[in-house]
């Protein structure tokens, strides 16, 4: 959202991407590897052609070395996104999507667009989804009052977007509401 620089003090999308890198994705490995312990847990063993669930950061790393194919998650398909987009545009509430879908989709499309069918179509669908949801979150902000803002199914990237504005305005609203009761 176009906000002045002063209001953009929030977690950057890159940092969110880093956080999302812990999510597990399925891969088809092209190399053999024993079960290996990492700080976040033990993953493997990799036994091609069996699929394996590993964190996104590891999948990215292997993919860049051409040592695996990433199996795109179920929701990263034209059919699913199309259906969600029509729901998004036809209904007032946010449709249900994985919490970190934007980050994961971006990483997968960046590094493994050859593993995703119809990557271009998916990219444009994701963009449409984002715009539709952004419009809704803007509308939602109007309902902001001093105590709560209920926007179910809002995803991490979108929360992050409205976070600076929302915190500050909520602070101000709280002050405004509290003054009279104090007197």
């Amino acid at each position, binding site marked *: 959202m176009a906000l002045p620089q002063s209001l953009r003090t929030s977690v950057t999308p890159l940092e969110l991407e880093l956080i999302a890198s812990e999510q597990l994705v399925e891969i088809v490995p*092209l190399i053999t590897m024993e079960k290996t312990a990492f700080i976040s847990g033990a993953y493997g063993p990799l036994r091609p052609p069996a699929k394996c669930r590993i964190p996104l950061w590891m999948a990215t790393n292997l993919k860049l070395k051409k040592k695996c194919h990433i199996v795109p998650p179920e929701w990263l398909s034209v059919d699913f996104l199309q259906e969600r987009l029509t729901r998004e545009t036809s209904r007032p509430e946010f449709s249900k999507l994985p919490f970190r879908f934007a980050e994961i989709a971006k990483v997968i499309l960046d590094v493994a667009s050859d593993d995703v069918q119809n990557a271009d179509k998916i990219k444009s669908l994701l963009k449409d989804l984002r715009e539709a949801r952004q419009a809704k979150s803007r509308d939602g902000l109007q309902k902001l009052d001093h105590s709560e803002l209920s926007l179910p199914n809002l995803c991490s990237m979108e929360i992050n977007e409205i976070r600076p504005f929302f915190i500050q305005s909520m602070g101000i609203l709280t002050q405004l509401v509290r003054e009279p009761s104090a007197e």
Partner: protein
Amino acid sequence: MASTSKAISNSAHQQGQTCIAFSRDGKIAYTGGLDTLVRIWHTDQGEDQEPEAAYEADEGITAVAAAEGCWLSGGHDSDVRKYIPGKAQFNGLVMSAAGASIRCLAVDPSGKRVAVASDELSVKIVDLDEITNVVVLEGGHRKRIRKTTWHPSGTILTTSSSDGTIVAWNISDTGAKVENVIDGVIPEVVDPESPEFMHDCSAVWHPSGQYFFAASRTHEIVAISRSTWTKTSSLSDPNTVGVTTALALSANGVYLASACNQEILVWSVQTKRVLWKHPGTPNAFTIQIAFSPTENLLAWTDTEGVLSRWRDAIPAESPDPVRQTAASSAQGTTTKRKPTPPLWGEEPEADAEGGDPYGDDWIIDDLGDGMKDEPEGAKEMRSGDGFVKEMVSITKAQPAFQPGSTPMENKKRYLAYNMVGVIEVTDQDTHHIVNVEFHDRSTRKGYHFTDHFKYDLGSLGERGALFACPPELDHPAQIIYKPYGTWSTQGDWTYALPKGQRVLGIAAGGERPMRSLRDPSSSGGDIQGQGNIVIATSSGDLTFLSGSGMERIVLGVEGEYVTMASAEEYVLVVHRPGATTIDGSQSLVATLISFEDFQVLQEKPLPIPKGHTLRWIGTTDEGAPAIYDSAGYIHLMIHHRRPNRAAWVRLMDTNLLERKQGKDESYWPVGLSQDTFMCLILKGRQEYPGFPRPLIQELPVRLPFRNQDPVDSPIEERIARERIHVNLARDALGDELTSPDIDKREVELDKQLIKLIQVACKTDKAPRVIELVKRLHFPNSIAAASQLAGFYRLIGLQEKIEAIKLWREQNATPAEEAREARQGFAYDDAPLARPKPFQNFNPPPKVDRPGLTRSAGIVEQTEFTASSVAIRAGRSLAPQASASRSTSPEGKRKRDDNDDDLSSNTFDVEVKRRAVGESDAAVPSPKPSTCIAIQPGRAYILIIYCRQPIFSEDWARSQEKSFCKKTRAQQTYPEERELF
């Protein structure tokens, strides 16, 4: 295969759609093309004739037909014209289709009516004598009609539509109605401009009228029964793969001609095999084929506009394509009745339709078989290829196949697709490009090469890739083995079969590499060998070769080879010992043959349901054989390592899969691991995976248990499945009891069992609890179960569990029991291994009589008794030898010798010399206490310190034996003898 006679070709029309029809007397062929002309060819004239042409049409001709007293043409200008027979003389319009292209003309068997199929959704049947007499068949089609044909009786008209349906119309005097709609046989082609639209999709009726042939969307030629309107059989040739573009039957129905891949194939309708082939025009496909109704002549036209006429297509020694022979009439040429049909006998309704089954025809047929005076053609047919066999077996025998291979489609195919990798082949007309790719790129490196032999069989083993090619003009059938791990092609070798033999199947096996085969170190790859190779040849044998190309053994196959797959230590061969059964069983048998010593480890019939075929065989991760059949079942052979104790477990029923519900999909297996079934998912009616290579899907393996309890059933299923695998793993261990891995799995099993016990305790099912407790593996688990029972206040049950625990602690563990059971099997099997009476040439077993052993004599070791030199020598040595033996038998030996030499006193030297000089004489026994000196050539002096009676002969023999042993030992180890 290719016929010797050559076809005459004439360029007749411009490129594009063409059509052909013979006149009813067979003397004239009419051809039409896009150049709006119909040319009239005299079949008795050669290549140089100048054909007459009919110029009336305004647009391209799409159909010609010959009727009684005229011939007809129709085309894109939507008019059907009538001409004087044999001449290009226009004789009037028959009908006009109001702007829609005419697609097909079909004249009924009497030659009086013509059925006109056009782009309209109706078919019009026009009476040629009175063209205002038109019957319109409406309401059967939703898309344009491509072809139409008549039943030989003239009462049924079949129309093939572009939406992939065939409609059978019942035509009677009163009108026409739809009798049946057959969907899903012919391909759906919507675009009339596409080349596929020109392919022949017509239902070609057999003259008997009992069935028709059509080119199916799965690239087979299928026969569809008239009585049931369902597919009864199909014709496919493993060597010709591709879409059939034209079909025709000979006048008497003995031969079927089809066009496929720029080739004309002539099939025998009876044996369903290709008899002869003829090459077509290059880069063109044949659109229409026609058999001459009166001569041995086959003619066809293609997209290049060329008319080809193949005179004597059927060689003279084979039955005539026109004349009604007994063999052809045995299939029935009359439409009134069905004689006892040899091939189509499974149609009981057909007989009913024919009226009295015991009519005079039946007698005639019986005579024909009983008396030997049948016409010559029939005799040849009977002695010919497979005729007698087909008389008996109605079930079509499954042909040999290679697991994981697909037919050539769009110039691409898979030769092998398994858990190791994929072999893809791309056809480049003159050669093939073979691309070998591995799932695990760290172990093996993928490669590709140009293949001029056109390999049609491939097998990817753990140690190398194996290819086989069919024999061609200049080279025999041969195989090539390309071991992995070598960077150059130096390791490759070929093995050629003698002329006339073919390779039916190949399998490459070998141990799974422990480390990467790309690793150049000595322990990396090839030290474990290059695997084992098995070839099945058309001469009915299995040839075993080593990985380096050494021939090891040739085994005979007891029947017909079907397929094989290789595991680490054995090859799984599937063959058909006899014929298929009449009720639809393929009667296949699987044999496990060890690579090590060619032992048959198991021989078991395959559990394939009747009417279904084997689709895939392979091995699981653990090396157990598994099969998949067309009914959708996966079976796993358990206990395959125990001779004669294997069983097929139904591991999975893919029809019960959740994802399959409500979907039309099938599975193409790639591999099987413990909990997952690796496969490619095929949508709809697809039979083989296509290109680009689809991702391998993993489906969870579920035993087809029928209980539907939401809590218990999944756990029970998991326990049963895990037990199968634990038992397989334990079998692989041999005599060892367990491994850490198995222990871990058993702990997991116990956890699951405890869950079940808890459920059973909750619902107060005491017998069940006890049964489950007995299945637990570890005492700790039993203790846990006892606590559970206590928790649910089932005191009586708890006591019983404690008793089980106590009993378990006192007795052998289940693992030990399993081992004992296994050893018991060996004992049970021992009589099988024992030679038959009177054929045993082994020495008799040694009888051990403890009561008759030599007693240890009393040795008096005083210097006074040491009178004999031998005894003296022995005595001097005895303490030394025993001392050295007790400390360190080998290491000290040398030093003792040295010491002995150094400290040798005079008589020792003397003895040594004696021993050498007299060789065998005066050899002391190693136990000097026995006090025997045996001297050859003299009577034995036996000094016996024994009070028991002795069976002296026996004893003497044993002495003699031990003596001989000793002397032999001395001969082999002379330095040891020096000791004495």
